[in-house]
């Protein structure tokens, strides 16, 4: 049923983006990966998501090669753990540019194609930190919270166009973003989670695939696979 459908994934070179790309490929999707690093996708494009023109050009190239844009997954992101008084203007701006601006740029690039098709699905990867806050990375939590607000608004704006816009807000997930010494890998922290373990990237990919295939009545929804970190 999904054979030949076309997905654009930002941040597809590693972590959640890479796992989503592999899952969708297994399901028969053709996948274009946009990342600063090379992606193991059908089409890989080196793009900085903060560069609106470059993102638009990459999406247009995907459409030119594959003939459609059916799904966008925005997974590009990075983390930086510093106390609020040490967050410089530059690091604040960069965090918002990549997480929020990158999401906006990718959505703006795919929407004309999806509107022309009269169908489409957008899944923005946010974070449970955007729902419930966090210590030591308030710029990250702020940007992810803004992504959630953006998704809810965009969902309403696109609801009449046959385009579903939703967000997946993962909890701490076992990806390279959580470095070996990360406090989220600390057994004392894991013991506080009702599920007692990190979220697996495959579980995020499964939810993304579900939204793309069968999430047809979700509109501005935030699904949060988070092992019970935020209930």
């Amino acid at each position: 049923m999904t054979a030949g459908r076309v997905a654009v994934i930002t941040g597809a070179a590693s972590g959640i983006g890479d796992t989503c790309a592999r899952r969708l490929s297994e399901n028969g999707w053709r996948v274009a990966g946009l990342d600063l690093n090379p992606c193991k996708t059908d089409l890989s494009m080196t793009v900085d998501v903060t560069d609106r023109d470059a993102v638009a050009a990459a999406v247009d190239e995907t459409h030119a090669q594959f003939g459609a844009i059916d799904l966008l997954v925005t997974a590009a992101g990075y983390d930086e753990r510093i106390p609020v008084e040490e967050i410089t203007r530059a690091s604040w701006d960069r965090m918002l540019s990549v997480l929020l601006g990158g999401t906006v740029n990718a959505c703006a690039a795919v929407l004309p194609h999806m509107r022309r098709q009269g169908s489409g699905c957008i899944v923005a990867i946010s974070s449970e930190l955007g729902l419930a806050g966090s210590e030591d990375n308030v710029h990250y939590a702020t940007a992810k919270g803004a992504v959630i607000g953006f998704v809810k608004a965009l969902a309403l704006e696109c609801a009449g166009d046959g385009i579903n816009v939703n967000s997946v807000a993962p909890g701490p997930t076992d990806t390279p973003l959580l470095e070996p010494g990360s406090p989220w890998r600390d057994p004392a922290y894991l013991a506080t989670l009702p599920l007692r373990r990190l979220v697996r990237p495959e579980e995020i990919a499964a939810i993304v695939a579900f939204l793309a295939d069968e999430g047809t009545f979700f509109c501005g929804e935030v699904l949060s696979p988070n092992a019970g970190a935020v209930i």
Partner: protein
Amino acid sequence: MPAPLDDAPVALVTGAAQGLGHAIATRLAHDGHRVVVNDIVASDPLTELADRIGGIAVAADVADPDQVTALVSEVDERIGCIDVLVANHAAMAMAPFLDMDPATWWHMIEVNLSGTFRLIQAVLPGMRATGTGRIVIVASEAGVVGMRNATAYSASKGGLIALTKSLARELAPEGIVTNAIAPSFVDTPQLQVDAGDAGVSIEEIRSRSAALVPLGRIARTEEIAAVAAFLAGPGAGSLVGQVLQPNGGTTRTRA
């Protein structure tokens, strides 16, 4: 539909004679579950559904503790312990708040909220024995954002959401995950009841409801059944105490 495998997981779906429960049972069978369909009384539609999906039908009133115990015992004896519970049964009556008589109020709390409590108590020993389980509670948007002239129904559904979240915390360490679904407008036989209450045609009710939904239509039962099936399946293992809202965007008040 091919017969399910003997070792396939067992799913119990309540309120399965029609509407959403019917669709969920059908979908779970399609996904390979052995399905037990339950409703308050035995009926031809319930039996026909069970026959068609290779499952079994067991009637029981979830408001009656003895009948709930008997239901789960019968399932245990006939096909084994329950791996997936989809609590979908509901009683629904509408009235302005001051016109709601206490008997009607308590009936909805009894069926919707306490009935689910009893079901979970009855199925948990089996889930604990296997160290795995999925509990899917069909709540309602009314339990999240409220619903005019439906205080009792909304209170029961809001109670189910709080139950979901608390139970999820309690059971997740054991490998049993609990989540809820909060649909809004769904194309079920309840629409016919709503149409009768409003004195209009079912088409009129469909179109009035669709006008309140940003997506411009009401949900098909299959769309909500897909959400239930996902929560019952392997991809949902890190969703703990979540309320999934396939509602077409109705969170914001439109009328």
